[in-house]
């Protein structure tokens, strides 16, 4: 299995298209960092404009606000919406791409079980997803920490603002990146499943993105009847739950409690739902592939 996995990873990282995603992430992160480095204050003013009626913010506070942690939060908010496309580029290609190239039939004449083949392919896609996230973490988190420095992190919420102490932030990012890995693996599993049905990778990539977009729209719609009937079961409703790691509990005086998470059960429930989705998508993909006649 390890030998096969090495082969799959070798194949993935030998393809030029693999690096499109890494390049895209690097470009977006650098563009955001450069923009905020030179015009960060305008951005902060814009963020605080909704709160300025009830709060007064001096320049010193604004300077502290514009630190590496906040920049990473902004980047995460932006990139985690775009990343499913980058994930689908590889996962949607996993089986369909082999079918399109004609190498699937050759691979299936080798003494490898179809289940083993699928598990290896999926694991390789998962490792690629992790690699993307690691690059993103390095650039968005550590890059921003280097460029903008660190300070207490301020999270803007509809109810107001909350301040997380400098020393209490980093673990939250690790948790958020871990959660994002699961969320993106769900997208990867969906693209992987669709890849089994297709004979070229364009179909699964477009289908994955269409499903993610439609589900995201449904997740964001404020229609009461959907709130309990549909939204809780859409994986897209749970993909943004990583933000939960940055929502902290406050004591009676309104001071945030270090190391706390406001609603950990909700975050864990969302995580559980995503994991169930991954197993359902992957299990279905393996079941279909085992029964499939390879005619390409």
């Amino acid at each position, binding site marked *: 299995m390890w030998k096969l996995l090495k082969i799959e990873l070798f*194949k993935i990282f030998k393809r030029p298209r693999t690096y499109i995603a890494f390049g895209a992430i690097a470009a977006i992160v650098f563009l955001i960092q450069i923009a905020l480095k030179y015009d960060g204050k305008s951005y902060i003013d814009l963020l605080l404009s909704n709160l300025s009626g009830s709060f007064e913010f001096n320049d010193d506070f604004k300077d502290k606000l514009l630190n590496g942690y906040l920049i990473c939060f902004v980047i995460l908010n932006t990139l985690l919406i775009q990343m499913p496309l980058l994930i689908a580029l590889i996962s949607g290609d996993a089986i369909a791409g082999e079918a399109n190239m004609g190498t699937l*039939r*050759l691979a*299936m*004449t*080798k*003494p490898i079980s179809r289940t083993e083949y699928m598990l290896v392919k999926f694991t390789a896609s998962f490792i690629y997803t992790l690699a993307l996230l690691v690059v993103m973490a390095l650039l968005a988190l550590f890059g921003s920490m280097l460029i903008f420095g660190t300070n207490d992190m301020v999270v803007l919420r509809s109810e107001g603002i909350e301040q997380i102490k400098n020393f209490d932030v980093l673990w939250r990012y690790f948790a958020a990146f871990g959660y994002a890995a699961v969320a993106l693996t769900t997208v990867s599993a969906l693209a992987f499943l669709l890849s089994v049905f297709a004979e070229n990778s364009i179909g699964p990539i477009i289908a994955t993105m269409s499903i993610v977009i439609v589900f995201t729209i449904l997740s964001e719609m404020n229609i009461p009847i959907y709130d309990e009937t549909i939204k809780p079961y859409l994986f897209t409703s749970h993909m943004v739950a990583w933000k939960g790691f940055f929502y902290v509990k406050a004591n009676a005086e309104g001071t945030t409690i270090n190391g706390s998470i406001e609603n950990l059960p909700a975050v864990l429930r969302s995580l559980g739902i995503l994991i169930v989705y991954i197993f359902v998508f992957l299990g279905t993909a393996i079941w279909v592939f085992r029964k499939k*006649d390879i005619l390409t």
Partner: protein
Amino acid sequence: MSTIVSVKNLYKNFKEIKAVNDLSFSVEQGQIYGFLGQNGAGKSTTIRMLLTLIKPTSGVIEIFGLNLQKHRKEVLRQIGAIIERPDLYKYLTALENLRIFAAMSGVKVSEKKLLDQLAMVGLAERAHSKVKTYSQGMKQRLGIATALVHDPQLVILDEPTNGLDPQGIADVRNLILQLSKEMNKTLLISSHLLSEVELIADSMIIIDKGEKIVEGKVNDLFDPAETIIELKTIDDESMYEKLTQSSLESFVHGKRNDCILLKLHRQQVPDAIKQLVNMDVPILSFHSKHSLEDYFLSLTTGSQHVEALKN
């Protein structure tokens, strides 16, 4: 000589289409076995079933004496195959492709052995070139190298000369003969280019519409009782008239491509020649036309011939 491949009562239906219909045949050790049929006859479907790419609707496939469904991995470990086109990873080099397929076959092959394998198919100098820069013939040879990289006992080649130029076809033919004679491999080769199979196969099966039409040794099948004579004379029109009114009338089979066709038993040929000479027929050429191609066409297009041969 032991049986390497044994197929019994194999069926494959794609919804209402019967792609393979009650097919049985066997391949003996060391043979080059030709698997013949027109396009769409069911050759590739059968080969895909032999390689577990397609599940049979019913029937039994045993390879090396093992049930293919139950012992898939053990059996596939001993098989090398190309199915239709030799599609490989175009963005990788020949050596990388070979290394990948060797690893997938479960064997560890040294760099030297891989290069030897490429040398055997004449690609040693292009070992480090990406496959996308290869010609069709080179891809075909590399495909054969990937099929052989794990030293399999049975080699299955589906249309191995497809898309090749005459030199490429000759190269592949020689390679197949080398594998059989020098390396003692058992080969199952499908083709619709019957002249190719005629030159290399020991035994063969002809299938049409998924059904076996005939199976046997090429030499036996190639020597049937009847033969077609293509007779060319100075004046075909009048000679045709003359022959239809002579004692040779019952042998006249028609006209094709400016030739008069006579259908005779082999033993009748010398007498027929004598009679033609006695009748002063101005013969330009007298050609016993019986290639495997004619045989194949007679089997797959003429149901009367088929029935006759079956009986």
